[in-house]
């Protein structure tokens, strides 16, 4: 992607690598010309222009982040730099996951874990996401034991919804609060890099 290398200012994005599919995020970022860093310790956050918290098990990621003193540094990082959580990462960013587990508490969203059921109910579908490039093209989205965003606070923009069969109600599966982004599905698994490009847009202001 030419935009990243224009003027020689290569953007550097971290991927939290405590557990989960961080390698898939790194591969997508590299394919669009982004320099990446695996983040396992607080000092690895220095110099980054953005951070992705990948899919994985949110309880595992939360416990490792607590044991290795990452919670406060991640909160400070998210005050002024873009952070995107996919699935477990979205749960970790939220301020309420309806059960006791370590959370960053930085996005004003309430999530429900495993909202669609167990693995047998995991699915793929296509979404309409107007904020992406070529919004006419549907976005293939993979939901793995996925959470939903039950409710959002003021100042949180809803980016994508999943239609369900109860009349007017539909479920929030992607939301943005300023430079913070949460998706309950996995753009890192589909080879469609439009969501990563959208996130880089936030990182570049």
């Amino acid at each position: 992607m030419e935009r990243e290398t224009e003027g020689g200012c290569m953007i550097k994005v971290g991927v939290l690598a405590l557990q989960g599919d961080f390698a898939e995020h790194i591969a997508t970022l590299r394919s669009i010309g982004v320099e990446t860093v695996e983040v396992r310790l607080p000092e690895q956050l220095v110099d980054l222009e953005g951070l992705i918290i990948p899919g994985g098990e949110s309880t595992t990621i939360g416990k490792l982040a607590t044991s290795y003193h990452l919670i406060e540094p991640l909160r400070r990082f998210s005050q002024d730099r873009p952070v995107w959580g996919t699935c477990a990462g979205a749960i970790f960013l939220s301020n309420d996951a309806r059960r006791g587990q370590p959370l960053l508490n930085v996005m004003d969203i309430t999530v429900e874990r495993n909202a669609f059921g167990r693995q047998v109910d995991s699915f793929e579908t296509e979404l309409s996401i107007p904020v992406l490039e070529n919004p006419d093209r549907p976005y293939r989205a993979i939901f793995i034991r996925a959470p939903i965003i039950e409710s959002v606070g003021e100042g949180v923009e809803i980016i994508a919804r999943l239609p369900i069969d109860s009349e007017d109600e539909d479920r929030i599966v992607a939301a943005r609060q300023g430079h913070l982004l949460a998706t309950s599905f996995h753009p890192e698994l589909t080879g469609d890099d439009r969501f990563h490009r959208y996130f880089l847009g936030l990182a570049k202001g």
Partner: protein
Amino acid sequence: MSTFQHRTVLVSCPFRYVAAHRETHLKTLLVVVRLVSVVESRRTTHFLWEVDVEKKVGTFAVKKGLAQMLKGGVIMDVVTAEHARIAEEAGAVAVMALERVPADIRAQGGVARMSDPELILQIMDAVSIPVMAKCRIGHFVEAQILQALGVDYLDESEVLTPADEAHHINKHEFKIPFVCGCRNLGEALRRIGEGAAMIRTKGEAGTGDVVEAVRHARAVLGEIRRIDSMPDEELMTYAKGIGAPHEIVKEVKELGRLPVVNFAAGGIATPADAAMMMQLGLDGVFVGSGIFKSGDPPRRAKAIVEATTHYNDPEILAEISRGLGEPMVGIGVSELPEAERLAVRGW
């Protein structure tokens, strides 16, 4: 196997998006039925459409996807709901629900079968992380029962007594994903050909001796490196030689790795064992008897989780390996008679 759920629902979209679907919707999962109403907002006009939404469950991407979420993590064998809670608290990414850990299966002998569904359901109730269970090699009805219970992953495992001496389960027929053990690349690719969405080394379960897991990991990863440098015309004869599907051999060459997630299993007992398997290039770790047959299971479990994350940092590994109490006693694999080796089961 994939199934479709058709549901008529209402969606609000910009007109152009739906119009594009109308013409090219053959591959898409949204099928427009009719326009319901037009909603004017301050910035844009939205059109409320009635559409059919298709949700595809049990696709290979969804099955493989869960294994991708487990990467860099530790899956622990548990025999009670209490064990499962200890494993979750220690940071396990999933638990394997069993009646007996492999060390006890080995010690007690007899026929080892699928666990009692009652026990599996208790464990599923106890934790929020994925729950896996084992069925016997080739026992497709045990697999059907475990799928009906709603377990998240099925291990068609050599640790149980095989039910079929020639065939494995046709795993494509199931909506839930399978993990299978292997000793070499041919075995791994045969299992993937049958529909396995995740692979693990067999190692030698219930011994606490990592040597076989290392042997199997090196065999698989070494062969992948060999394929990488092989010209395309040699791939068919190579596939024939290792008894693997040619298509999947070609895919391995293109990707430079297995097309599914590859974990270590069988004999891992210490944080150092886990970190070694990660440094060798595996994606994560199963720990069977190594945790709950040790002196201090909660502490050892947490240490192995941390070692799997910080596998490349010897200073952290030194710190987390300190004072963990007694490891499981273990059996040297070289002392095991051939007839007692579990890894030879599987075809």
